[in-house]
């Protein structure tokens, strides 16, 4: 019996000790750490710090903290110097960069042309999410310490964008060769990871790199990234003062504004239906252009943008700020059920048809909204909703005639490479079109002005052929407290860049 009392007594003492310890804390709960420390809530950090394997999008902040890229972007999305000070296409298949001098990595290794070559060769040889973007680099010359010349197997006009994102992040060649780069980043970026104040998958502490070439413009001595997988939890943490900023969401934006939190919202992710079975192999009706056009006419984009997914209604795959965007093509497909029915009848499908749409829970609501209006023209939708990882794999197996998709338009050459052309990984049924293929290649070797005109033609062609049914370009949200300034969108990027963040006072 005494043993029961002992156990219970021990339990009481232990609980009381924890409560007392909590009450007598030396400070308040782990709130923002002072004027020179910035605490940011992020959904995750890269699982590997190897530059070849780095993601982008939600990983912009940790990646930019750990590394610096060859090229930066300003708020309008224009390319500005980073570790490279100049760059140009001397021919459509030759890209030359001049490098910044006097830069060293945090392990003391010099940043120079040899370092860039080592990084790009490593990136080409290591499988990663963006390896395809540098597949056209056939050889790399380093005529001097500050000059790198890339020889391309075919024109690739998107290298500035590629080198402004994860594949432009430069790691120390010594660290790359050492084999530990996946666990510990060694770059030349504005901050250095402090492993002693880092708990994996919880918080990552970066201290300012005094050797950074632009250190005088970096506003904080310490950057703490807290991994919080739930945007609502990030919001609570910002409200409670535990975080200075972080990713927001449409569901909490109004509460954030009324609570005095600065809300930055901007168009980013494009939600669209990929009408993949353009040759009608699975659903014969989809092989007809008039049927695909009818499906486009039967989508209430404005209604969906106002209720299901806040953003800008669109029927273009190429978004604003990209080469192929043409404002005159907006509203090409107005919401017109009568027109849709007429087109279906002309195509011989007056009674409609059945079709399956592959989707995933985060975007099911949009498919449901589309299905409701498609039902009015006799097109009956079965939604095949899969969990995220299964959905990504299912897209590639080619069994689904239509796929609900979400991605961010970046650059028309890369987007066409991803969605449109014969070899596009998202052209699952490998539908071929001479005009599309030809315009894509033509634009790749042109100067910017001519390329814009060519890719606008490509956009118009894509819309007329109705290979897709774009719906809305959704909004991304970023919250910040009034203690931080310089929080701005970078056009064409999913989340803000870190370089301009400074204390408000």
């Amino acid at each position, binding site marked *: 019996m005494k043993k029961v009392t002992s156990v219970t007594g021990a339990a009481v003492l232990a609980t009381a000790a924890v409560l007392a310890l909590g009450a007598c804390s030396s400070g308040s709960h*782990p709130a923002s750490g002072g004027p020179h420390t910035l605490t940011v809530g992020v959904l995750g950090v890269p699982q590997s710090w190897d530059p070849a394997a780095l993601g982008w999008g939600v990983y912009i902040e940790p990646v930019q903290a750990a590394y610096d890229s060859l090229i930066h972007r300003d708020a309008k999305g224009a390319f500005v110097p980073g570790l490279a000070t100049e760059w140009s296409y001397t021919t459509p298949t030759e890209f030359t960069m001049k490098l910044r001098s006097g830069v060293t990595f945090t392990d003391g290794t010099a940043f120079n042309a040899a370092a860039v070559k080592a990084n790009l060769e490593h990136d080409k040889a290591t499988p990663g999410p963006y390896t395809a973007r540098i597949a056209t680099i056939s050889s790399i010359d380093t005529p001097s310490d500050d000059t790198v010349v890339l020889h391309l197997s075919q024109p690739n006009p998107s290298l500035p964008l590629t080198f402004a994102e994860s594949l432009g992040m430069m790691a120390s060649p010594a660290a790359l060769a050492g084999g530990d780069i996946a666990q510990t980043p060694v770059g030349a970026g504005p901050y250095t990871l402090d492993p002693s104040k880092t708990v994996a998958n919880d918080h990552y502490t970066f201290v300012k790199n005094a050797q950074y070439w632009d250190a005088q413009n970096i506003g904080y001595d310490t950057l703490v990234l807290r991994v919080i997988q739930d945007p609502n939890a990030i919001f609570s*943490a910002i409200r409670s003062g535990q975080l200075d900023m972080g990713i927001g969401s449409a569901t909490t934006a109004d509460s954030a504004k009324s609570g005095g939190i600065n809300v930055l919202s901007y168009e980013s992710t494009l939600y669209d239906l990929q009408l993949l079975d353009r040759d009608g192999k699975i659903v014969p009706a989809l092989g007809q252009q008039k049927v695909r056009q009818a499906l486009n006419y039967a989508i209430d984009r404005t209604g969906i943008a106002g209720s299901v997914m806040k953003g800008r209604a669109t029927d273009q795959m190429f978004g604003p700020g990209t080469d192929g965007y043409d404002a005159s093509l907006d509203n090409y497909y107005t919401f017109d059920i009568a027109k849709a029915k007429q087109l279906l009848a002309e195509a011989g499908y007056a009674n409609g048809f059945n079709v399956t749409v592959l989707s995933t829970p985060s975007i099911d609501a949009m498919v449901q909204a589309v299905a409701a209006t498609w039902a009015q023209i006799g097109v009956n939708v079965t939604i095949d909703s899969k969990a995220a*990882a299964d959905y990504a794999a299912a897209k590639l197996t080619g069994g689904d005639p239509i796929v609900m998709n979400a991605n961010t338009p970046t650059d028309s050459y890369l987007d066409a490479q991803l969605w449109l052309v014969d070899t596009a990984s998202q052209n699952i049924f490998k539908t071929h079109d001479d005009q599309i293929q030809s315009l894509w290649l033509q634009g790749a070797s042109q100067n910017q002005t001519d390329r814009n005109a060519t890719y606008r033609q490509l956009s118009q062609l894509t819309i007329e052929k109705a290979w897709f049914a774009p719906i809305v370009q959704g909004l991304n949200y970023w919250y910040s407290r009034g203690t931080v300034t310089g929080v701005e969108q970078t056009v064409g990027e999913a989340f803000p860049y870190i370089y301009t963040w400074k204390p408000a006072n």
Partner: protein
Amino acid sequence: MLKLIGRRLLIAIPMLLVIATLTFLLVNLIPGDPVVSILGPDATPAQYAALRHTLGLDRPLLVQYGDWLGHAFHGDLGASLQTHRPVVESITQSLPVTMLIAVFGVLASLVIGVALGLASTLGGRIGGRIAQVVSVLGVALPNFWLGVLLVLVFAVELAWLPATGYVPFVEDPGLWAQSLVLPVAAVSLAGVAAVSRQTRAAMNEALAKDYVRTLLASGTPRPVIIFKHALRNASIPVVTNVGFQFIGIFGGAFIIEQVFALPGLGQLTISAIGTHDIPVVQGVVLVTAALVIVVNLMVDVLYYLLNPKVRH
């Protein structure tokens, strides 16, 4: 007692083998491809095939199973497909956080539950009603919903406690304790309800016994009868239920970690499932199964020690 422990450990080995096999099969039967999670959806089929080959995922399932099992017997649960870190290392880092929530959750359930149960026993009809309300709330309220509510009140509105995150003990013991209060409160409510119900029932039974009547008749003060005699006897079933409490709260902690962004086993598992990180999922299931077996064994030993009737 040694026989008891020995028997249980012998049974544990085939049990773990069966669990490991079932887990391996189930995880590999789930649709999806880990290489797509690693390379993203925009890589080429050749890149996917190359990575699949590098990771050994194109080998026959039986070969993969034999390889994994062979290493598991030596304590090597493989490496994460995403981070390449040893699974044992990831679990070792994450498990203490979840264990802390579970252990303190059980302690809080015991302390508060016994106190409430006692109060409801001695409080008459009103006390009984209060106990009923607490019981219903404990069963009905999802712990993640309660967690969100606690954050809103105590972190956002009152700013008394942190909304998210975990501070290691060695970094700051005070902040460490603060970071655990709300998660522990959220996971322990169901346990409090169960323990208070159990205590009330056991106390009512104990107080109806003949020896209590004898003690009363002999003039023993009522508080002494309640706390020294009746409560001791009533606590045996409560204490021996600790094991089941622990397992239930341990499972609940997986969800709570998402609400409070705690770097425990729950976050590790959910992240691994989402990215088809098969070795991590297998490792977590195996470790959790082993933990349940150990906890059940400890409960049996505790019961053996506490209850003389079992010994004879």
